[in-house]
Structure formats: structure tokens, C-alpha cells
């Protein structure tokens, strides 16, 4: 009986211990989760503040595309210029030059050997999707992307975006943006696709706050 009591006592103490542990874990997870969300909010607010301070940005980039159709990863070099709120120029310089300009609801795309093609985002759904893609990681305005992506802070200065649905979710698995600790500009972007393809972008030589030549957003080649 006594033994039984002891056993019960031991059992009780075990259960109590387990309960206490679970409650503590849940509480700490909750606290942790809350703090993680807060941390993301704080971080995104900081980025947003930085974006608000810098009206224009230009930089160089290196793009590494690893696609199943390529025999080996392809590396491109180029320049990007952003004039907020709605102008963006994406220029591949080597090995094959090409330019893509978005200005408001319209745009221009050029290849070195062809006439510039003007497009209207309202009537060109493909270019509209491309524009939305670029602005996603170039603008850092994550507030307005919350209904399209699940956004989380996976490491300090690393934001991960996972498409929630729609056609983008059919191809893109996740987009990981790593910000410079000092500049708070996107330095590395890793786009993982569902079928294993991936794109790595490295942005460097940032120049911000300096007014950009308007012709950057009106013609492909100066």
C-alpha cells in the first residue's frame, strides 16, 4: 500500500513535472513566437524607414541561374536602378546585354539587336507578373505583400517569403532576401523554384539617395 502510494506519489510528481514542463515550453514558445513576430515587425519597419529615406538607389548585380535546362550555371552581370515609387531599370550587361524598364504601368524591353518593345502592364499580364516579381525583392516594401506571401525572419537580416497561393506558388518555392547589416539594402536574393531550379542574385556597390538620370527610365541605351 505504501509502495503503491509511493508509486502513485512518484507517478504524480512525474505527471506534475511533465505538466509543468509542457506549460513552460508552451509559454516560452508563445513568448518566443511573439518575440519573433515582433522582431520581424521591427525589422521590416526599420527597412521601410530606410526605404522612405532613400528615394533612389542604384547598384550592380551578379546573377547565377542554375536551371535544369542549362548544362551548367549561367552567370550574368548587370546594373539595377530604382527611382521610387514606380520606376525600375534592370540591365544585363554581360554576357548578353538586355534592358528592361518599368515606369508606372508601362515599360520598355530591349535586346541589343532588336528594336525596343514598349509594353503596357495593364494589357500584358506576363510583363505585369515579371514587374511584380522584381518589385517584390527590389523595393523591400513587404507590408503590402502580406496577403501574397508568408513572411518570416529566418536569421538576423534574412527575410524569407513563401508564396501563399496563385500561379507564383506553382513555380516559386521561396525567396530569401539577405540585407546588409549596415546599409539595410538587399545584398543577396535566393529564389528557389519548386522543380529544383534556383537563382542567386548578389547586389553590390550600392549608391543611394542620389538623383538618377531620367533617361535611365525612358530609353534603353544612352
Amino acid at each position: 500500500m505504501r509502495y503503491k502510494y509511493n508509486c502513485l506519489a512518484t507517478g504524480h510528481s512525474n505527471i506534475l513535472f511533465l505538466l509543468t514542463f509542457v506549460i513552460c515550453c508552451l509559454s516560452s514558445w508563445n513568448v518566443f513566437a511573439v518575440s519573433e513576430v515582433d522582431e520581424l515587425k521591427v525589422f521590416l519597419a526599420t527597412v521601410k524607414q530606410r526605404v522612405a529615406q532613400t528615394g533612389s538607389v542604384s547598384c550592380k548585380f551578379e546573377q547565377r541561374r542554375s536551371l535544369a535546362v542549362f548544362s551548367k550555371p549561367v552567370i550574368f552581370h548587370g546594373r539595377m536602378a530604382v527611382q521610387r515609387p514606380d520606376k525600375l531599370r534592370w540591365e544585363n550587361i554581360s554576357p548578353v546585354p538586355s534592358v528592361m524598364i518599368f515606369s508606372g504601368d508601362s515599360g520598355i524591353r530591349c535586346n541589343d539587336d532588336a528594336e525596343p518593345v514598349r509594353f503596357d502592364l495593364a494589357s500584358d499580364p506576363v510583363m505585369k507578373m515579371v514587374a511584380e516579381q522584381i518589385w517584390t525583392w527590389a523595393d523591400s516594401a513587404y507590408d503590402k505583400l502580406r496577403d501574397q506571401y508568408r513572411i518570416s525572419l529566418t536569421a538576423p537580416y534574412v527575410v524569407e517569403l513563401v508564396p501563399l497561393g496563385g500561379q507564383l506558388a506553382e513555380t516559386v518555392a521561396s525567396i530569401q532576401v539577405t540585407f546588409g547589416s549596415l546599409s539595410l539594402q538587399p545584398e543577396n536574393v535566393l529564389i528557389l523554384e519548386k522543380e529544383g531550379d534556383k537563382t542567386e542574385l548578389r547586389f553590390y556597390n550600392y549608391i543611394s539617395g542620389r538623383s538618377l538620370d531620367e533617361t535611365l527610365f525612358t530609353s534603353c541605351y544612352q
Partner: protein
Amino acid sequence: MSHLLDKPVLKWLLVLLVVCGASFFASSLQLREDAMDMLPDAMVKGDMAIFNKLGLVNRVYINVGIDSAEPEISLAQWGALRRSVEKMGDMLAREPLFDQTSYRLDPGYELAFMEDIRTRLPEMLTADDYLVLETKVSEEGVRTALEGVFRMLNSPAGIAMAKQIVADPLGLTLLAAERLKGMRGEFAVNLRDGLFVAEDGKNCLIWADAATSLTDSQNARDVNRRLQKIIADSLEPGISAYTIGTLPHTLSNINMVDKDLKLLLPLATIVLAVFLFWVFRSMKAFLVLFIPFLAALPSLALLHYIYPKISAMALGFGIVLTGLAVDFAVHIYLALTRESGGRDAILRNLRRPVLLAWITTSAVFVILLSSSVSSHRQMALLALFGITFAVIFSWLLVPTISGGHGLRLGGGERFFSRDFPSGPPQLLICAWVLFLTAGAFAWPHLRYNGDMQVLDAVNDEIRRTDTDFKNKWRRADDQAFVVATGKNLDEVLDRNDLVNSYLAEHLGGVYHSMAPMLPGLETRLQRHQLWNSFWTIHRDQLDERMRRIGVELGFRPDSFSPFIASLHRDARIKSSEELLSGPFRSLFSSMVRDSGTRGPESVLALTVVPLREGSLPIIQNLALKEKHIHVISSQGWRRDVEQMLRSDIVRLSFLGIAMVCIVALFSFRRFRPVVAALAPVGSALSAMALWDFCMGNGMNLMHVLMGLMVIGLAVDYGIFSVCAHQQGISAVTRRAVSVCAVSSCIGFGVLSLAGHPALHSLGSTVLIGIGLAWPTAIWVTPAILGKAKQ
């Protein structure tokens, strides 16, 4: 029996029994208030039936826009507009009053479109496309294409579109996607987030097909009530919406008629009551006026026996026309109370003019029975029954309350009994002939306007929104709808191909057709043959080139194998139903319709052609060659309706005048009395012609219909005057004619104050016609007859 009917109580009992019995039968009468009832049968069964099957008549277009003076709207504004449109579209789609609602393309439509087009390539590519393909599959073409693919895959577009780019490296889809431009439909529509957006980017379009006829006033009210609630519940602040189409026009007309009648009917009743009290100063006289209206119920019961559903318009007009029978009661009453010679003798004398007047009035309505407009036929039949019953009831009942010969004359009656200075008869006749000459001069200059739009009471708001909509959505000023019909989808698509090739040959590319996306079976078979023979020759060579050049550019050798595999020979031919499904379904649905009925024209395919000068006859030639292809344009439609109504009305007017002349000739047999009896008709016609000539309005449907009625009334005045003159009782008849004419002028004339063009035309025609027939009957007719007595 005749002895029994001599007893007044039994007469009243008999009449009341008939009325009560009739009210029982008439109680199940069903009314319909439909603007279609105003159109000739051929149009309702022809073009309008096609419009109905296509859903165009009952389609409500809703423009949802943001109120912003800025050239472009912000993202937040667009969000508010988008949410409003989506909420409204969802609510309309769930609303049972609407069959089908289109407000957006399915989510993910961008890639789905391209994917869908890729599967349609064997059906879509034409012989011309294969000439372009020859270049694309050449050594140089493949190299250029793969260089482009490499560049695209390494551009930002490559991230979003890699799968699509690799699946179609030669851009065959883009070649076929050009066809989409031909599917614009009636409007210039852009897409934003899948919504249909105007060029200004600030307005979105929703269209919904009502499940019931919107030309029917009750349906229009029900649909509008629900629609306004949905609009109010879905709009966010700063967003507004308006509707265009049949609905606002129907509502505007109903509201204006309601407003007019609410004001004018009490006004006419009061003025008429005051006038009659002034004339008769007797309650008995009011009872006399009430008797003819007892005829309404038996005539309705008879009409119901013939037509299960009666047009409300026909009912209203028919009852009004029945009111003309008051003239008979007044004549009988005045003769019995004011003349001397004994009741039986007076009734004997009255028998001839009453019978003649009934024959002439009925003859006019018998002629109207041959009208091609269903509401006219119903109206005529109701009036015919009504007048016949009214004459019988008046003949039976008026004598029972007309005792007390030599009643004191009312003030009005004394007034109408006076001998007004009218001048020498010759002068009167000269003036009348001059008046007829002026009328005859004006007659050929009259312009008949059969366009039903002149009777369409649109307010400024509707005019403004119609114009605004046309500008925003670049709707062509005038456009033709070419409708191919068939018993099934295969047949209709084949005929639609015929339309497409004919228009391409004769008008170039300026039209909107879905034939390139939805080719007929015959065309599909031909295109499959082209596809098979082309790839039989080129596929293996293309495979080798893509592997070789691809490797040179940095691709794996088998990168484009799935594309090569998709160019398979002997691809299955898609069925018409398969072609109709997919992401384009909502676009197709506005241009291809299965009416749900069985018959040689149960399925329809629409092509919209903006009209240029001279293009309509070219298009109409196609309809002449192929009986299952119809061409409908507002221009041609108006012209056809006008021609049909014009021929109808000319025939009816001619027959009406001829019938009245024949009856007068048959009754009076001698030249003078015949001319005298017809004199008021001549005056009425001249007056109406001069009035329309001076006002420069042109005649419309209402003028002509009421003109027929005026002929019937005016000849009655002539007949009564001639008979009275022959019997030497001119003074009493003059009073009767005057009372009847003035009361008709009051009753109808008040309608000339109406805002609704149809009511206004009706009122002014009667006022002018009767207004001149009356003095002619009391002055000119006796002047023509002279001192001669029969």
C-alpha cells in the same frame, strides 16, 4: 321576352348579371407590360428573338468607377475599386434574378491563357502561320529563337516564366495569341487583376444577364430593386456605379408614365366632372355617363377568352377607347330628355344614327385588327367589344333614367344651344375648303418617323450615362451584330467561320469575332491536316537543330524534348465543346450562346462589326446568301421597324378612311349628305397634318394610331349631325356633339401636357383632330346640307 325587357328593373338586372358574370371570368386575367408588345410581330419573332437568345436585351451593364480627377489612380484607390467590383460581381453571381454574371477572368488566367492556347495550336494555326513557321524552324530561325530563350531565361522574366519559355521556345503560342485581338467584343477592355478595366484605368465593367425579360416593367422593377441593394452593399467610399442597357430605359419610361398619369388623370377627372356638372346640373346625367363603362368588364372577359395574357398597354388604351361610347349614351340621353315627340318615336329616330355611328367606329377597329403589332390587335378587339357592349347597355338603360322630358337646361347646355354667329354658309364652306387645301398641301411633306426611340422617354441622367459609357468603353457609334445560328455547336461554328472569312475578304480585319479561337469542325479538320503534314516534314529536323544549337548556347541536349514531343503528328481533333471550355470560357460566353431550346437556330455565335459608311449593305449581302446568318444593326433595325410600321399604318389608315367613306356612302347614298358626314373627318385629318407640319416633329406611331381613332370619332359627329339635320333636331344634336367633343378634348387633351412622348403625341393628336372636327360637325356639316331635308 320583349315585354319583359320593357321593365326597367329587369333591364338593369340583366345588365348587372352580365357584368357580374363577366367580372368573375375577367378576374383571372393576366396582364403583361412589355415594350415588345409595341413592335411588329415579324420583328419580335425575328431580330428581337435573336437578341433575346443572345441575352443582349436582358443584359445589364454596370460601370463601376472611382471618382478621381487625377489622370491615374493610386494603388489604394485601385484596391477599393477592385474590392467593390469583386464584391458586387460575387453578389450578382449568387443572385437568382441573374442567369450569368461576368466581371473577371478566373484567377491565374495569364498563364492559363498561354497554356490553353498552346493546346489549341493545331486548331488555331492557319496556312499563313505555317509560312512564318517555315522561317522559324530554319537553321537561322532556330538559332535566333534559342538565343532569345537564353536571354529571356536570364532576365527577370525568366524567373516567372521559365516553364512557359522552355515549353514553347519558337513562340508558337504568341503567333496564335494574336487572334485574341479579334475577340474584343463590343468594348475596348483592358485587364487588371483579371478585372475588365476601361482605358482610363478608373472604371471597371460588369455585365449580368437577367433571368427575366427587362422590357417587362414588373420584372424591371424587381431586378432594379435587387440590383440597387447589391450596388449599395458592395461599393466602398469614393466608388460609384451606374447601369446602362434596357433596364434604365424601361424604368425611365415606367416612371415617367406613372408620374404623368398620377398628375394628369386626377386633373382630367376633375376638369371633366366640373364640365359635365356645368353642362347638365343633374345627377342622372352622371349615371348616364357611368353606363358605358359597365361595358368594360364583359369586353375584358371576352378578350380574356381569346388572349390568356393581355398587354397592359392594350388594356389601358382599349378602356380609354371604350370611353368613346359615352358619346352614344349622351346622344340618347339628350334626345330623350330634350326632344319632343314621344319616347318611342325618339328612339326610332335615334336608331339609324346610333347604328351608323356604331358601324363606322367599329369598322375602324375591325381594320386595326389586321395590324402586325400584337398590342394594336388586342387594343382594337377590346375597343370593339367595349363599344358594342356600351351601345347595347346605353340603348337598354339610358331610356330607363331619362324620364322627365323638358328638364331644366344646365348652364353649359344653354351655352352650347346658342346660335353662334357663323357667317354665310358659302363663306363657311370656302373657309373649310381652304383649310382642306392647306391640309392637302401639308400632307405630302409629313415625315413619318417610325423610330421607336422617339417614344422612348429617357431623362438627362440616362442620356449622360449612355454617352459617358460609350466614351469610356469606346463603344462604336453604330455597329452591326452578325449572328450565325445553328442547331448545334458544330453547325454554328462552321457558319461562324463563313462569317469570318466573308468579313475578312470584304471588310478587312475591322471586326470582332471568336472564329479564330473557335474554328468550326470543317476548318479544324483542314488545319489538322496542315499541322500533321508540316510536322511530318519538319519535326525530326527541328529536333536535331534544337539539340545541336541548344548545346552550343549552353543548354542540355534534351532541354527541348518536351516541346518536340508536343508537336506530335495525328493530334486528336478537339470537340467544339472542349474548345468552348477552359480559361476563355467567360470571354466566349458573351459571344456564343446556347438558347436552351431545340430547333434549327437554337445555338448562336455573335460577331460584332463597327459600321463604316457603306459597310452595312456589304454585311447584309451575307445574310441574303445564307439564311441562318442574321445581320442586326440599330441602323438597319430602326429602318426595318420603321418600314414595317409605316406600311402597316399606311394600309390601316387607307382602309380606315375607305371604310368610313363606304359606310357614309352606303348610308346616305347622295353626294351632299355623304360629304357633310365626312366633313369632320376631312377637318380632323387636315388639322393633324397642318399641326405636324407646323411643329416639324414628324409623325410617329402614336399620331397614326390616334389618328385612326379620331377618324372614327369625327365621322360619328358627322353622321349624328347629318341625321339630326335630316330629322330637324339640329339644336339637340349640336349640344350632344359639343358635349361629347369637349369631353373627349378634355380627357385626351390633358395628355398633351404629359412629359412622356407617347402620351404627349396621343393627347395632342386627339386634341387637334377632335378640336377641329367638332366645329366642322356643328357648322360646316349643316352648311353643306343647306336647307334640304330628306
